[in-house]
């Protein structure tokens, strides 16, 4: 998650307090309010109830990111922590695999925050088709998962009043209505009648199921069995 740190004319800095029921809890300076990292919302202290602006971000491989943004800069830590696990294409992609069944605590989810509620795609359920055409708060959307299972994006799938239906074509999207081919990382059509057109991005949050559910107990789970939908 990436947040803007300016809030109503005040500049905040954030640090960690630890975990509460497994969910990372932050504090800010100068007010020492307590914040939920998943939601970007102050849950205690002087700023309680305040919401940070979540900025669109993409969890992906370095190879993809630098191809998308050749001019990118990179954060470098002064001292990397000594013992640390490696998040790479293989380990993150492999972690998406698993048996079928309802949402599990350790499931990786792609979370959506709407005006009235929230929803989540389980990455594990996108592994087979790698595409899900859904509707969220009256807006037709499509979720896409790359073939290595590391990178997920969500787009609005309506254009000029027409609703499009997508399927995966390798690491690209194709719409049934016109046959146009789309780049799922930029939302831009690269071939076909709609070439050059761009779908609107839907900002997402990458989280684990228990953290998402703790923040949004009534969240909707897309394409889930009834046990999930009841939540």
């Amino acid at each position, binding site marked *: 998650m*990436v*947040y*803007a740190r*300016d809030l109503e004319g005040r*500049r*905040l*800095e*954030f*640090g*960690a*307090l*630890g*975990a*509460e*029921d*497994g*969910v*990372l809890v*932050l504090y800010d300076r100068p007010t020492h309010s307590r914040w939920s*990292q998943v939601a970007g919302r102050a849950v205690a202290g002087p700023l309680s109830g305040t919401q*940070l602006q979540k*900025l*669109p*971000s993409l*969890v992906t*491989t*370095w*190879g993809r*990111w*630098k191809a*998308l*943004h050749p*001019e*990118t*800069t*990179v*954060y*470098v*830590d*002064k001292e990397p*922590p000594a013992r*640390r696990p*490696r*998040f*790479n*294409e*293989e*380990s993150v992609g*492999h*972690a998406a*695999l*698993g*048996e079928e069944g309802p949402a599990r605590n*350790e499931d*990786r989810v792609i979370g959506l925050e709407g005006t009235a509620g929230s929803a989540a795609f389980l990455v594990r359920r996108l592994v087979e088709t790698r595409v899900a055409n859904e509707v969220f708060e009256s807006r037709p959307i499509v979720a896409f998962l790359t073939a290595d299972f*590391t990178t997920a994006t969500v787009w609005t799938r309506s254009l000029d009043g027409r609703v499009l239906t997508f399927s995966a074509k390798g690491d690209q999207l194709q719409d049934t209505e016109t046959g146009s081919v789309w780049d799922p990382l930029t939302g831009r059509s690269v071939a076909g009648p709609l070439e050059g057109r761009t779908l609107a991005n839907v900002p997402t949050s*990458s989280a*684990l199921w*228990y*953290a998402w559910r703790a923040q949004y107990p009534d969240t909707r789970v897309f394409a889930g069995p009834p046990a999930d939908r009841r939540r």
Partner: protein
Amino acid sequence: MVRSAPWRRGIVWCSTVAAIVTATATSRAQERLNRDRSGHTEIRGELPIKTATRTVERAQASLKDQEIVIGVVVGGHARAYPVNLMWSPENEVVNDTLGDTPIAASW
């Protein structure tokens, strides 16, 4: 994401049947990366605030193509945060400024 305590142990090898090996490898990968910390509460007090004092250009980055990053673009400025640097609570939130915009990246 939240990972704040030592590894959980306890992978049990029940069988050497290939299918079981595969399933165990999968759950092990899931355990490493997606640990179920749902019942875990450990408020440690205000840990030091982390500020991004160093960034490098793409060409200077010593990252492998397969490593996972959080990418963000603000006002035409793109920056990547390698999540392997954001392990453990004190590193999980990074205060930074991209262009003129103060941001906080967290994993």
